[in-house]
């Protein structure tokens, strides 16, 4: 501890250089924190997706929805605990512009909330109310705000397609809300009863665009997904079943190999930084060769001099890196709206600090060992 003033004084011998080097480190670690945050965000989205939840979809996207008879087949399969249909209800509130469009998932609400890995938060009483109110709906809080709705409102929605009664107006009772705590961006959707939608629609009667499936045994996800697709192979509606985990993974990959890209940028940044910090430390240590010679002549061992040099490097790198990571954490929410998952977590910070320590050692290794090994007479002879 008594060396701290010595190390500190060494660092501030050239205040401008030390400050600039520290600023570079701060900035590099802001970038590193953000990019690693993106990676961590994707990893977390993937880890969050439980294996027991599958989604059975049509194999070719955009093809007609599947018949409800598929639900009975799914429920009869051994290994499947529950299954529920989902149809997509799209309507407009007031004017027919895309900004006023309302998306509701038409499903069996009592099952639906147990069948997604999205971790939707809803009270049992809200679900019970929806089950008992045929034309009820639950929506996310952002949607309430968007349209200025209140729980208890009766809400008319317009569709382009005609209902069985010849009109295009659907009336809903807004019964309550549910939260989407795992979603990084605000969610705008609601849940309605499948039967209300199905009984009144004229097109695609008795169909669902996909089925949610929950397995009894999560370890059998891959085998069960294949078994479901085999059961519907060569039928008029071939399926493609994937766990929600696989879907998240595939989506991350399709964004264009995010991880590879962020890793490449981080690599370039760290290389540049290592070069800069190394150069800065080299100058700082070499300029003070004479001081180190004096320290040795009053009894400091080579090892202790080496230690002093490394301590100085660490003192330069670690606080600057920590500051950079803190800034990254503070500005990460600004990017969340656009990028989606970005989490500057404790793990990202720990990895970042480890990186900074590595950088300090790497940058100081060569000049420090040179100074430590330099004979006292040579060192004292230096300017």
């Amino acid at each position, binding site marked *: 501890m008594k060396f701290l003033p010595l190390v500190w004084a060494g660092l501030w011998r*050239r205040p*401008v*250089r030390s400050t*600039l*080097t520290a*600023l*570079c480190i701060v*900035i*590099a670690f*802001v*970038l590193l924190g*953000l*990019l690693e945050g993106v990676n961590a965000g994707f990893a977390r989205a993937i880890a969050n997706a439980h294996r027991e939840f599958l989604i059975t979809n049509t*194999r*070719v*996207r*955009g*093809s*007609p929805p599947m018949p409800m008879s598929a639900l009975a087949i799914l429920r009869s399969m051994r290994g499947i605990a529950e299954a529920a249909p989902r149809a997509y209800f*799209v309507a*407009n509130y007031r004017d*027919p512009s*895309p900004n006023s*469009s309302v998306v509701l998932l038409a499903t069996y609400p009592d099952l639906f909330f147990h069948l997604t890995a999205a971790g939707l938060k809803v009270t049992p009483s809200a679900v019970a109310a929806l089950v008992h109110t045929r034309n009820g709906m639950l929506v996310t809080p952002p949607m309430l705000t968007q349209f200025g709705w209140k729980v208890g409102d009766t809400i008319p929605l317009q569709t*382009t397609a005609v209902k069985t009664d010849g009109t295009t107006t659907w009336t809903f009772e807004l019964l309550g809300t549910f939260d989407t705590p795992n979603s990084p961006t605000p969610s705008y959707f609601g849940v309605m009863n499948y039967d209300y939608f199905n009984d009144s629609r004229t097109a695609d009667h008795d169909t669902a665009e996909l089925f949610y499936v929950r397995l009894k045994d999560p370890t059998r996800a891959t085998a069960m997904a294949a078994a479901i697709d085999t059961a519907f192979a060569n039928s*008029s*509606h*071939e399926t*493609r079943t994937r766990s929600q985990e696989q879907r998240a993974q*595939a*989506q991350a*990959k*399709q*964004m*264009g*190999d995010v991880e590879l890209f962020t890793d*490449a*940028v981080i690599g*370039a*940044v760290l*290389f*540049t*930084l290592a*070069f*800069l910090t190394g*150069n*800065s430390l*080299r*100058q700082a240590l070499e300029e003070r060769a004479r001081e180190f010679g004096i320290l040795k002549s009053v009894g400091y061992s080579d090892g202790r001099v080496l230690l002093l040099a490394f301590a100085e490097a660490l003192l330069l790198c670690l606080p600057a890196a920590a500051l950079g990571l803190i800034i990254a954490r503070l500005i990460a929410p600004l*990017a969340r709206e*656009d*990028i989606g998952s970005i989490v500057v977590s404790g793990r990202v910070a720990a990895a970042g600090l480890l990186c900074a320590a590595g950088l300090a050692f790497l940058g100081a290794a060569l000049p420090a060992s040179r100074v430590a090994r330099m004979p006292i007479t040579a060192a004292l002879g230096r300017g």
Partner: protein
Amino acid sequence: MMRQIPVLTAMSVRDIPRRLGNSLVIVVGIAGVVVVLIPVLAMYLGFRATLQGDGRPDRAIVLSRDATSEDGSSLSRDAVAEILHAAGLRRDARGNPLASAEVVLAAPVARLGDHSDVNVTLRGVGPEYFALRPELRLVAGRMLRTGTQELLVGAAAQSQFAGLQVGDRVRLPQGDWTVVGVFAGGNGARESELIADAQTLMSAFKMDTFNSLVVALDSPSAITTLRNAIVQDERLTVTVSSEPQYLATASDPVNHILRLVTYAIGSIMALGAVFAALNSMYSSVVKRATEMATVRAIGFSGAAIAVAVLIEALLLALIGAAIGVAISYGAFNGVTISTLGGAVYDSQLVYSLTIAPRLVLSAVALACLLGLAGGLLPAIRAARANIPTLLHEN
């Protein structure tokens, strides 16, 4: 002063080997920025250029009114028939409109690079598709025969995804569909797609509505005529946009993310590089303090010294830019990638990264700017050096 600057600059440049490590900091710092920024920019520009590459103002796309993109739109056969009678459409000698009513689907394929599951756009098109899009041409195999289950594959899609060679069979509902030909051209998103005959596809999939209708206009201004004819019609509930206009809005979400990433990473790295350049030039100036005081003492002006320092920073920045451009050109030019961005919600867009002269120029301009920003304060410091103190100190 004009005579002093070249002398001082030559002196600085000759002195660089003595403080090589220091000078390399600028070079490496700026090369790092350029190496990262060029491919990101190339990705952003390549994506945008490819997405909008097909757009021609004398073509228009009709969608249902509640839709913002093709896959969310639905047009009945009756509506399509009615629109084809509207004014403003380009017609052939027999009075038939040049148009293609289309359906878009997404078929699962494997990406060649990493074998990941992705979707490729499968577009059902009308018989006039190639007449409507003269920029596309068949480069291998033959055209589609109506009524049989056949596919044509875009050259870009073929290069990125497995199982799309001529003669390959693609498993879709109602059995296998055979790839009979390859089309290319247009520098746009069409090459990322598979196409089939719309009627055959719709009967195989038991679909009875189209997604979109693409029409050729008499002239770009005829879109107003067409719009007046069909958008006013309350029974149709459709919207019409010119192709460039539609492609510009359709590309927005992904484009937005790419732009954000480009500018965020770019500006953070640029700021870092300025600090690196400042550091390096500052150290140089400090190291050469005696030398600078000496030349000041023998009559060189402070301004000339400052300019010489700036020129040195600029030269080093340019060397960094050149290295950065060379590395990114070697590693990324002509590389073809595929990401989300196809016509259907989660289908792929294939595009290539081109390190165009414009890109190189902007990288060089940025490097100069960073070099100057980094050199300015040290230059002023060098010019203001107090001669007696410096000469005395050392």
